[in-house]
């Protein structure tokens, strides 16, 4: 059983502070991995390295057989060209805590931009596809609204549609519901659940323990820049093996 994503010995420093201190993990095709852990433990940084939004100093990230971001030739590790990195970034999709929709484009145009500029589709083709994805996240009738005219939950669903329309091999979700009012969280989680059911491979950082328990096949507990513990959700939540995880679970409300 080979992995879609394989991370070995990932080290990341900001200046002199080491934030990721050797992360190893693998994600199989269609697997849903939830990443939990206290604030500052390196969850966001881990996702950002996978998408090369952050450079990293050591280790390898291999996605579907391709080494991401760096290549080693004659024993020298080099960052790949910007163009190559841009191409590799399109292999993964990312949804952010703050949505980051493009405010000058409508919901449909947000989804279409990558399709037109990168997949070289005609505007008509891109529009058709964008409408299909917006329909998928329940927002077909809001296609021509600008982000400023949408609620937070709607914006986040558009952002998810924008990412999956590019048909990434792997979706990364970074606390996509933490900026939302409580009553808007459900609609976004529903969309993610649907994608999981469709077999989309995903890693999601979340504080929604119940949701992680429900949707994830595996849970990774980040602690101080390393993986503190990992396993299936039932085992992790009901019988934590480490003191740290037990403490963390106690402090986070299981709502």
């Amino acid at each position, binding site marked *: 059983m080979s992995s879609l994503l394989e991370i070995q010995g990932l080290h990341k420093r900001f200046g002199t502070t080491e934030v990721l201190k050797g992360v190893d993990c693998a994600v199989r095709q269609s697997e849903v991995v939830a990443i939990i852990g206290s604030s500052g433990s390196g969850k966001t940084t881990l996702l950002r390295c996978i998408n090369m939004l952050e450079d990293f100093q050591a280790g390898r990230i291999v996605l579907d057989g391709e080494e991401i971001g760096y290549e080693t030739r004659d024993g020298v590790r080099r960052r790949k060209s910007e163009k190559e990195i841009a191409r590799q970034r399109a292999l993964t999709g990312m949804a952010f805590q703050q949505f980051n929709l493009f405010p000058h484009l409508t919901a449909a145009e947000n989804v279409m931009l990558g399709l037109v500029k990168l997949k070289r589709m005609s505007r008509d083709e891109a529009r058709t596809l964008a409408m299909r994805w917006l329909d998928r996240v329940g927002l077909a009738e809001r296609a021509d609204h600008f982000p*400023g005219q949408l609620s937070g939950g709607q914006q986040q669903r558009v952002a998810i549609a924008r990412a999956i329309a*590019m048909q990434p091999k792997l979706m990364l979700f970074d606390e996509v519901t933490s900026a939302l009012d409580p009553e808007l969280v459900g609609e976004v989680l529903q969309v993610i659940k649907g994608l999981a059911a469709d077999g989309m491979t995903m890693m999601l950082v979340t504080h929604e323990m119940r949701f992680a328990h429900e949707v994830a096949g595996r849970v990774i507990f980040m602690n101080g820049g390393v993986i503190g513990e990992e396993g299936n959700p039932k085992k992790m939540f009901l019988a934590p093996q480490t003191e740290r995880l037990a403490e963390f679970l106690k402090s986070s409300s299981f709502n």
Partner: protein
Amino acid sequence: MFDLQSFLNELWIARWAVLFGLGTTVAISALAIVFGSIVGTLVGLALTYGGRFLRLAVRAYTDFVRGTPVLVLVLASYYVMSTVGINLTPFQAGVLALAVFCSSHVGEIVRGALQAIPKGQMEAAKAIGLTFRQTFLWVLLPQALRQILPTWVNTAAEMVKASTLLSVIGVSELLLRTQEIISRNFLSLEFYFFAGALYFVINFGIELFGKYVERKTAVAGQG
């Protein structure tokens, strides 16, 4: 005493001089604004996204240019360039000086507008797989444009006004032509007023253009 009949008479006699002067002023201003805006956009990009060395070099350029009176830039590009073997006509030297002046101002405007765009915009564009060039063209510039426009209109109007300084190196722009006309017919009040009105019309046109683009790029749901 203002004598409309004799003013119109003299204006008719001087019509070609006025038109050529006006044409020269418009041409110089337009060239300076276009080149200055293109270079200024690159300056703004370098100041915002450039590496440390590039930023420092470009910062030195803009600070130097902005700290220098335009008249000095004009004289320098006409007299100093020739000492290093580059012989420019007064017209070319004038366009160069104004374009340089314009680029430093536009550079600051563009830098300010780009830095005001939240970091998440660049990251979302990167995450989709857009290259820097695509991100700039389709994500950053359209957003920056709305902030750039009002100040850019001011800068463009400043260029038109600054073009009058080119009379000192002998460019036959509107002001110099007007002075020549007045030296013949002595209708100084009338012709200076008329020239002033023409400058106003040019700048009013720039402002209308700016308003038009602003309307075109307005986005619903944004204050």
